[in-house]
């Protein structure tokens, strides 16, 4: 990671970065290690075991919550990415009344505390009869993820302007052919990044899920929260370790594909 440099400024920057990364990763590393430790109370010396993973396999509640979380996040990713990409295209390529205002209104939900949005949703959903449940949670997650998708995809769209699509039209491509063969492939890295965002927003989501989950239904963050309240067990470490490994794998895979897969360059000649 460090390459010796004559420039002390660069060396110091490297050390600084390493410290920050260490600060971020150390707790996670400790947790992963402890998932394999026999002691419930994080006691040393380290005695390797896989007992927590075996216990996890029998823990119905935690497994069902995990399944809910993954399912919810996947559904949210598909719906929010599709809707958000369409919205971003509309913003970038069409002019219509109230466009500026609508675009402006996309941003506040990103900054409004989730607690407040969650409360508002709970009240609203009860009021109009949607109630609580996985469907309500999905609705909430999609609403939360949409602004992120629109912003990420929109940034990518802004980077290449309409001339590629115009060129396709002059060459005889109808609007669908233009979208499928030009817009979408060029947009792909932005769409993938937006999908990862949408997945993360949903998978991480605690507040909204907590508010909108009916008794007996929960997601992983909610379940972990109640597990910790009731009394901590290393099973939580075990499930968390599995999630970390999977999500890091996905992100690294994406980064690798993005870099080496002939990432569509930046919009041709400038």
């Amino acid at each position, binding site marked *: 990671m460090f390459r010796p440099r004559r420039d002390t400024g660069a060396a110091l920057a490297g050390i600084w970065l390493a410290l920050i990364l260490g600060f971020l990763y150390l707790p996670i590393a400790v947790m992963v290690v402890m998932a394999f430790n026999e002691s419930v109370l994080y006691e040393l010396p380290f005695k390797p075991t896989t007992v927590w993973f075996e216990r996890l396999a029998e823990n119905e509640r935690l497994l069902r919550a995990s399944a809910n979380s993954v399912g919810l996040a996947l559904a949210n990713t598909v719906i929010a990415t599709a809707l958000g990409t369409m919205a971003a295209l509309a913003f970038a390529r069409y002019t219509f009344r109230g466009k500026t205002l609508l675009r402006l209104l996309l941003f506040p939900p990103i900054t409004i505390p989730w607690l407040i949005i969650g409360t508002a949703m709970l009240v609203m959903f009860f009021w109009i009869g949607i109630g609580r449940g996985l469907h309500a949670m999905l609705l909430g997650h999609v609403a939360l993820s949409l602004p992120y998708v629109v912003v990420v995809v929109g940034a990518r769209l802004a980077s290449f302007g309409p001339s590629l699509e*115009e*060129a396709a*039209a*002059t*060459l005889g491509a109808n609007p669908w052919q233009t979208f499928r063969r030009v817009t979408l492939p060029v947009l792909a890295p932005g769409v993938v990044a937006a999908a990862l965002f949408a997945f993360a927003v949903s998978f991480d989501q605690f507040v909204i899920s907590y508010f909108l989950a009916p008794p007996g239904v929960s997601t992983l963050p909610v379940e972990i929260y109640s597990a910790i309240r009731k009394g901590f067990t290393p099973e939580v470490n075990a499930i968390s370790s599995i999630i970390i490994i999977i999500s890091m794998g996905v992100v690294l895979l994406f980064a690798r594909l993005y870099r080496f897969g002939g990432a569509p360059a930046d919009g*041709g*000649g400038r």
Partner: protein
Amino acid sequence: MSIVDIEGVTRRFGDTLALDGVSLRIEEGELFALLGPSGSGKTTLLRAIAGFVEPDAGVIRIDGDAMHNLPVHRRDIGMVFQHYALFPHMSVFDNVAFGLSVRRVSRSETAERVRAMLALVQLQGYEERRPGQLSGGQQQRVALARALVTRPRVLLLDEPLGALDKRLRRRMQVELRQIQREVGITTVFVTHDQEEALTLSDRIAILDTGRIVQSGPPRAVYERPETVFAADFLGDANFFTGWVDDEGRVRTSSGSALLAAGVPEDTGGEIILAVRPEKLRIARAGTPELDGANRLAGTVAGVLYAGSTVTYRVACGEAEVTVLEQNREAVPIAQGEPVTVSWWPEHTVVVRP
């Protein structure tokens, strides 16, 4: 190969009239330049032919077919964009093949036609490269090949050479002209570069505020500008304002009498004369060999040295004239020297304001 007919095309954007009753006929196989400052409507006109802009009034016909409400992808045109707009995620081959593949041309025919087109623009061997790996000139050729491979009825070029440096631009001008001749395609191109318009085109139209000011072959438009704007925009010009006297000479306010070709008899009012700076000759006062029937005495007010040419600003009474000379004086004429400027009446053109 086709004829483009534009009749009374008008287009408004909000409060501005981008095109104001433009009528034009572009002949078969012709290379036609739309020249004008930014905001003159030249790009709007090109985009109207392409179908990106729908006229509020007027008709555009290609080979007699009205283009009204016909979407861009069904107009059978080829277009080269200012920044080429090559598809960054496709190889050179796929870029050029795009127009054929959306037309469902067979694989073997596609390969053959793409290869022939890449040979025409001298890019054989570049099939597998990505646009990002090409130089500006190469990207330009790919864009041209891509636009021509479908054998469109009309080729539209939007400032095609604007993004290239000067030396490369010169070379591409020659190449573009050659390829256009070889293919024989009716071509309309937009430029703000007057030299490019003069060297490349069969005919030029000068646009200003949505109207065609003047059109014709480059030489005719350059030598016989009809308005002050045309004279000033295409090349440089010296202007003299005056009144026609009894003998058909033009009296300027500073008292000199000038002869011009085609001076109308008895205009009663002011008329404006235009003379190109390179038509003027300059000599030190008292030098005998100077010819030309129009003469002005003056003092050199400024000298701009540009290597092969020298531009003099000469103060002649109240007027200041610009003279462009080949750099051949043994002893350069210096600022402050008294000089005589002269030129022929046939180079003196009457223009409208």
